[in-house]
């Protein structure tokens, strides 16, 4: 995603954020960062940041997002509300549904239960970072072919979980596929087709058992 300049995103841009705080707050923020530096020198102790917004740099899909975030902002919140990367979805915000699944250093995690500040210095991959130059990955293509999606809201999460699986293991069994996706919930009922799509990518496609009787 090229469009990562936080300046352009609504009220969450640095410009308008500071504007909303007013000059006094800007001065206060500067004063606070001065006092933190003083603390550091005084105690030679750990750097304490926050509670107000601090500079946070996230490396997402190879690009650097430079944001101003409070420590309590989750990675999901940062992606959806401080950038245009809305591919990761908020389904529950409680690490129970998987719609927010992203990869951190190639490992799938719930971005809703990860502080954005803790995701710094790591390689973050979202669904938008998978297809290169518009070419769908094998997993994405299989989803399209097998109709492994319906409303699509859970889809990015499932795709991230499966992409991580196939990155580690090109030929998972059906049980390994289930184990990899157990943390992703779908309400529309795409799971059977997700299995078909994943088994196809695994090189072990199963035939559909659907029977169509015409002019019944």
């Amino acid at each position, binding site marked *: 995603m090229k469009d990562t300049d936080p300046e352009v995103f609504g009220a969450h841009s640095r410009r308008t954020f500071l504007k909303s705080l007013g000059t006094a707050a800007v001065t206060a923020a500067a004063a606070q960062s001065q006092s933190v530096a003083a603390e550091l020198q005084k105690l030679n102790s*750990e750097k304490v940041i*926050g509670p107000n917004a601090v500079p946070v740099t996230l490396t997402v899909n190879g690009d650097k997002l430079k944001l101003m975030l409070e*420590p309590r902002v*989750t990675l999901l919140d940062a992606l959806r509300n401080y950038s245009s990367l809305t591919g990761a979805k908020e389904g529950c915000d409680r690490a129970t549904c998987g719609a927010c699944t992203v990869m951190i250093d190639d490992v*799938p995690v*719930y971005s809703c*239960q990860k*502080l954005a500040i803790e995701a710094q210095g790591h390689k973050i991959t979202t669904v938008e970072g998978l297809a290169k130059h518009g070419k769908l990955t094998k997993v994405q293509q299989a989803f399209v072919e097998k109709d492994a999606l319906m409303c699509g809201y859970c889809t990015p999460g499932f795709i991230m979980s499966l992409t991580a699986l196939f990155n580690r293991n090109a030929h998972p069994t059906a049980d390994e596929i289930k*184990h990899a996706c*157990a943390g992703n919930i779908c309400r529309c009922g795409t799971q059977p087709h997700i299995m078909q799509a994943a088994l196809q990518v695994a090189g072990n496609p199963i035939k559909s058992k659907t029977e169509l009787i015409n002019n019944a």
Partner: protein
Amino acid sequence: MKAFQYATAHSFDSARQLVADNNGAYIAGGNDLLGLLKEYLASPDLLVNIKALPGLNKIDRGSNTWTFGALVTVAEIENDPHVAKTFPGLQQAAAEVGSQQIRNVASVGGNLAQHSRCWYFRHRDTHCLKKGGDLCYARHGENRYHSLFTGNTCISPVVSNLATAFAALDAKVVVLRDGKETPMTIAELYQGAWENPQAHNSLKPGDMIVRVEVPTIRNVSAYIQASDKHAFDWALVSCAAAATIVDGELSQPRVALGCISPVPYQVEAANEFLQGKRLDDETVAKAADMILKDAQPHEHNGYKVPMAHALIRRTLLKLKG
């Protein structure tokens, strides 16, 4: 979540100091802590990141004892082929913790220290006994997920899969308390919850689990849990068993149950009974009877008695391989 400050600790002393001085809380994987913060069940002013502390993220395969650093993730335990070979019960327990997304960040220490999952405790608008209120709602209300054995008025059980598995393996949990390493058995780690309705375990403010030490003396172990769903679900009842089996006879057997008491539940008399026995249907049934003898079911959790009985028998028989 309430606003908080954040700092990364680079020494154990500074971690302890930061927490003590600032109404702080340690953050490792963050699964449990962030869940509590989002519901305003905890409101620390400062989160102290302990993931940079040295020496906590390795599995050390010693000759008599293995050590699991507190920052080792549940996923690492699940996926380590050596663990699967030497402590299959622990591996099985790890594999069923949450989902892979959770296991990838969940720490051993955090999994053991996690707070109660009782829905009254976890609810932002019920001020239950454990939160300092007057009433254990579960005792008089919806208690299908709750304890069969309790030492106090609160009936919230321990639900950590790893605690159950570690209990059967006679693990020691090493807690750093006021700068000193304090080893505890699993039973000692949770004794606080048995005695005190407001406690989740025996940890005091500032305590940090640093490692779990597991003796290798037992050559077989197993773990089974029963859950409503086939995946990504808390156990209704979990069971872990471990022993040394020589010539078909049990030596040093341990059976522990999760989700039925604030402590992974063991009955010494049952462990003693199993000593020297061979695993057959009659023996395991008798052991199950002994373990569940004094169960005190509540209105909605009586099903846990037959469920636990079945799990005990099956987990023990699973030791035969």
